[in-house]
């Protein structure tokens, strides 16, 4: 009998050990690292200090970076929901053949390296890039708009990288939708718009929000796209962590930045999903 009781632990044990050794332990080590003092002359010292966190909280330089990062994440999330949710709705109405093609186009990029996709955006966004040349040649603008190394450029490229997650989440919740509810609304005299806003939208809202949450979490910690499109001047939190670790070798400050980022992202993620779960339960009890 004891053998039977121990079986699940034996099965889950090896994986759990790996997660403890490679996730939990490293995070604890990072936490302890973030309390160590650092000077450029002597490197990482011994002792315990709050200095790294105090610096992040009080230095306007870091406040600006955090503000920029979360503003970027918020905008990217909003735009991704605004264009991703309608696209999922359209996908559901396409013929099977067209839908198969649309899937490859819309979801396929998830399988392609972010470096490749960002390279495409650097070719499109430059002053001599495709977008500017097209706009110039049709006379819509008289001189190139700066898109590379700008906030707008970062936002555009990040939406491209992350919007498939919204499409996927909304598509999944559309699949669970009972078509009878739409038919019932129509037979009771609701127009297409009323059916969409009063019947379809409330039912897929959890999907929209969970997709948005994934985008927000990934956008606020994205590295490659902000690093390449934003360049060295337009820093976000993750590129700042990279610089502290690999250029300035100020690991304690980098660790503190990473933990502040982690806590903010986790608090927002858990908070929103709790809120969604509560609302969702109330609506469908």
């Amino acid at each position, binding site marked *: 009998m004891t053998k039977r009781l121990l079986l699940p632990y034996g099965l889950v044990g090896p994986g759990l050990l790996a997660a403890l050794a490679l996730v939990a332990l490293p995070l604890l080590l990072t936490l302890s690292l973030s309390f160590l003092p650092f000077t450029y002359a002597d490197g990482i010292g011994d002792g315990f200090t709050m200095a790294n966190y105090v610096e992040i909280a009080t230095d306007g330089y870091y406040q600006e970076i955090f503000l920029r990062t979360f503003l970027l994440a918020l905008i990217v999330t909003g735009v991704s929901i605004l264009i991703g949710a309608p696209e999922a709705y359209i996908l559901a109405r396409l013929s099977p053949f067209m839908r198969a093609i649309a899937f490859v186009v819309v979801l396929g990029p998830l*399988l392609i390296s972010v470096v490749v996709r960002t390279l495409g955006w650097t070719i499109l966004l430059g002053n001599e890039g495709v977008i500017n040349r097209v706009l110039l040649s049709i006379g819509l603008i008289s001189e190139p708009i700066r898109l590379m190394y700008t906030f707008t450029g970062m936002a555009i490229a990040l939406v491209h990288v992350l919007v498939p997650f919204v499409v996927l989440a909304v598509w999944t919740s559309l699949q669970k939708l009972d078509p009878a509810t739409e038919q019932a609304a129509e037979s009771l005299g609701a127009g297409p718009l009323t059916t969409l806003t009063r019947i379809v939208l409330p039912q897929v809202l959890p999907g929209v929000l969970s997709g948005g949450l994934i985008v927000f979490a990934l956008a606020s910690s994205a590295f490659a796209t902000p690093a390449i499109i934003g360049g060295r001047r337009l820093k976000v939190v993750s590129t700042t962590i990279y610089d502290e670790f690999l250029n300035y070798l100020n690991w304690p400050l980098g660790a503190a930045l990473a933990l502040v980022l982690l806590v903010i992202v986790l608090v927002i993620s858990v908070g929103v999903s709790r809120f969604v779960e509560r609302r969702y339960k109330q609506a469908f009890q």
Partner: protein
Amino acid sequence: MSRTPIALHIFHWLFVLFMVAPLAVVVLVSFTDKGYISFPFDGASLRWFQAIWNQKSFIDSFWLSLALGATAATLAVVLAVPAAMAIAWHRFPARDLALALLMSPLMLPAIVLGIAILRLLSHLGMTGSLAGLVAAHMVVVLPYVLRLVIAAAAGYDHALSQAARSLGASAWAAFRRIELPQLVPGIAGGWIIAFVTSFDELTMSIFVSSAGTTTLPVRMYNYIANTIDPLLAAISTVLIALTLVLMIVLDRLFGLDRILGGKA
């Protein structure tokens, strides 16, 4: 579809254009005969594809990423299959905690995990080691496998195992002959997603890899940071082509939306 308003059609095609444009320009640029980023309309060639073969560092990184992805995905399967069986089929204290811990790499930003594992490796004196890179990738891709195998295990009818045992099969025989085959679709899908995720992983690998163990995305990133030329576009085009083939295979085998559901 006939009742879909025209505005939705226009929106759909604009969306498709938005998704395809950055990849299409990469592919186009890779066929230029110029030495800089330009379109091949006034002169096309395959010179940049030939040039890839002379870039030994990129070729080495490609093979490294391929081997790393396969190893990490396989190790993740070895750990995730028993864990998924325990979580899907047994009720035990700490079950939810175990699941949360195993899935936690999905919740953690890659950059945080990257510096955390770098910190661990520097403690152990293993900075830049291949073993460290493999371990880091394994734990990051494990949740993808776990999720798909749990989904496959959830639909399993335990009467089959009981029938096998009552007919005299050992627990191991029942697992290998009856239970495991039922999990194979989940395992195969999970392995592929795990492999692709590892192959594409950049942010964490930047911290964990070293000069001797530079994965392909890291090498490409370092290259872009300095210069953008058609060589990189040619390498990207090869990757896009390989991904396209993989996508068609995946869609035939599993359905693209279902397998990618494991990624989100």
